């Protein structure tokens, strides 16, 4: 080892040529190594120079700060962050009674806590289902009130982030078990079960979500007797569950099909019943494989909740849009959309990062 030329210390002032080490060499090796990479580098650098400084100028230098009034905003040439401060509570909580807005805040915190805890595999035990149930009951008590001295708040007044979270979390958690049953049903040997599952999945997947929401909100009430109305939120929630279940079922079916036939035969050979086979052998493997498409569905579904705006529910996007109609604060849509875009992004980015980690964790045996 000692005779190795590489370990000989360089004499002071004696450095390799700048074409081999140093920033210039790095640039050459990574950004300008071929002629097409050189062109790409120049194009991207040009795009960055063209977009980033104006963005910073708009968002920071020329902007009216969070304390700005609408008059100050009219004079500023940049962003008006005063709009976000003024409308913050409305965008986050919608028309929920102003003095009671700690309740939706607590609900959001509760949901984030529950979701955070669910990410830890140590909590993946049957009793955690009860924790979720308790959490949902607590969220219901907080949002509706009417007990423990909380004033009753109708769900027509709910809005903003809690509504988005309720629609997506309840939608996904109810749709998930249904989707497993649908996926199993679609691969079942029983023709009737199979036909029903295939018909359901193909029917729901064959129509856009927006038309399902329209059906639920516009057509469905007309079939009910006069005077009977079913809550708008409930109708939208059911439409979401139906929709998510069909899509997730297909993701899970992909996982089921990827399991080698030998696994099924080995389980049958051990004399396991159908549910034992599925519950202990097939599904744990199939679900682990299905994580990327499932998370894909989760993320798109989370964002799809914003479609409820067309049926007059104020989700996060709906409250931002309604906030923009205040005559005193009109025209700050860049600020509003940027703000809620950040919220959506934070949730979706977290979901995708977590799924990457979970995928690695669950598929350890596959990487061996």
């Amino acid at each position: 080892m000692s005779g190795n030329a590489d370990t000989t210390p360089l004499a002071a002032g004696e450095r390799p040529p700048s074409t081999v080490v140093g920033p210039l060499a790095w640039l050459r090796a990574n950004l300008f190594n071929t002629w097409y990479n050189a062109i790409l580098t120049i194009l991207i650098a040009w795009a960055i120079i063209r977009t980033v400084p104006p963005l910073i100028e708009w968002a920071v230098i020329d902007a009216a700060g969070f304390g700005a009034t609408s008059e100050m905003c009219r004079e500023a040439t940049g962003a008006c962050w005063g709009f976000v401060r003024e409308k913050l509570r409305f965008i986050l909580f919608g028309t929920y009674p102003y003095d009671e807005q700690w309740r939706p805040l607590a609900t959001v915190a509760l949901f984030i806590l529950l979701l955070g805890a669910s990410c830890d595999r140590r909590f993946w035990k049957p009793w955690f289902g009860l924790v979720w149930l308790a959490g949902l009951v607590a969220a219901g008590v907080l949002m509706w009130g009417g007990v423990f001295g909380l004033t009753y708040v109708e769900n027509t007044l709910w809005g903003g982030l809690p509504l988005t979270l309720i629609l997506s979390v309840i939608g996904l958690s109810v749709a998930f078990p249904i989707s497993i049953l649908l996926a199993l049903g679609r691969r079942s040997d029983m023709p009737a079960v199979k036909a029903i599952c295939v018909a359901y999945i193909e029917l729901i997947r064959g129509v856009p979500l927006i038309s399902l929401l329209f059906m639920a909100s516009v057509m469905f009430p007309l079939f009910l007797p006069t005077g009977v109305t079913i809550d708008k939120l409930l109708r939208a929630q059911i439409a979401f569950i139906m929709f998510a279940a069909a899509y997730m079922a297909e993701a899970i079916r992909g996982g089921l099909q990827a399991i080698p036939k030998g696994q099924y035969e080995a389980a049958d050979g051990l004399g396991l019943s159908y549910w034992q086979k599925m519950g202990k052998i097939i599904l744990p493997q199939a679900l682990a494989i299905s994580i990327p498409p499932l998370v894909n569905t989760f993320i798109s579904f989370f964002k799809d909740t914003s479609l409820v705006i067309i049926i007059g529910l104020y989700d996060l996007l709906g409250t931002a849009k309604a906030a923009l109609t205040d005559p005193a604060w009109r025209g700050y849509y860049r600020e509003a959309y940027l703000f809620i875009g950040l919220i959506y992004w934070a949730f979706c980015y977290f979901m995708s990062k977590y799924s990457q980690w979970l995928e690695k964790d669950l598929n350890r045996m596959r990487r061996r």
Partner: protein
Amino acid sequence: MKKGLLAAAAAVALSVAASGAAHAGPTLDAIKKRGFIQCGVNTGLAGFGNPDSAGNWTGLDVDFCRAFAVALFGDAGKIKFTPLSAQQRFPALQSGEVDVLSRNTTWTLTRDTSVGLNFAPVTYYDGQGFMVPKSLGVTSAKDLGGATVCVQSGTTTELNLADYFRANNLQYNPVVIESVDEVNAAYFAGRCDVYTTDASGLAGTRAAVAPNPDDHVILPEVISKEPLAPAVRHGDDQWFDIVKWTVYATVQAEEKGITSKNVDEFLASKDPDVLRLLGVSAGMGAALGLDEKWAYNVIKTIGNYGEIYERNVGVNTPLKLERGLNALWSNGGLMYSMPFR
């Protein structure tokens, strides 16, 4: 979720009970049993129906909803607002999800007949107009041949635009855009020469979105009639009467110079018209099946038509809309109350 089902079950029970003992119409009975009015409003339209920063509903349409609640219950709080999208509004009214629709809805023949609505008096006369940059030097819509026109898609605005230019033998290039925000942005970025939508919308956009409102003019031509009115569904004439005469009461009060501030002085008036309106001489309330003080309460808590107008869309609001067609008939407008007698 369970509450929704319970409420539905309760509603079944109520409607069954109501049909058994129907002396008023089914809608009015349901409202009285429920204790509040369900009012369908816009999900967000500046000046007409939009929630403020604290989530309270404001706007001209919203104030009329409150006026109906005051007329019926004497309490502006006995109301529930249901924000409705354009596609949802008629099914929501037909299915009984709302009792009255006060959501910038144009009164048309088909809506009045086959859609099954009854329209109360117009609360805002609107019409489609054109806005151009002052620098173009255009003074009339007849000069707009060959212009590029920004218009929102999927609205009657688009059809009216096509009809107008065809009828006048003018060429134009439509720039059709889905969202209002983007139409605004396209116009102010100079993508089109002309912006067309309802005149109230043009004025609102000019006041609130234009970098400099004085650089833009609204042309005098109004190419469509858009009378916006509250609507109820067919089948309950008494409820329709209450809605109708509540709107008239605000107009009548303005004609007589009665405002929310001076209404108490008018209780000692010598004018028999005023005395009948305010319920000092009994009869009007009983005819409608309301408390004799109904109109007094409406004027006292909500105000007359002029007050409602000025508070929500008038020249001192960001929308800066002149009264125009919405002035009293005695001032050259179209606001005219049927006589209270």
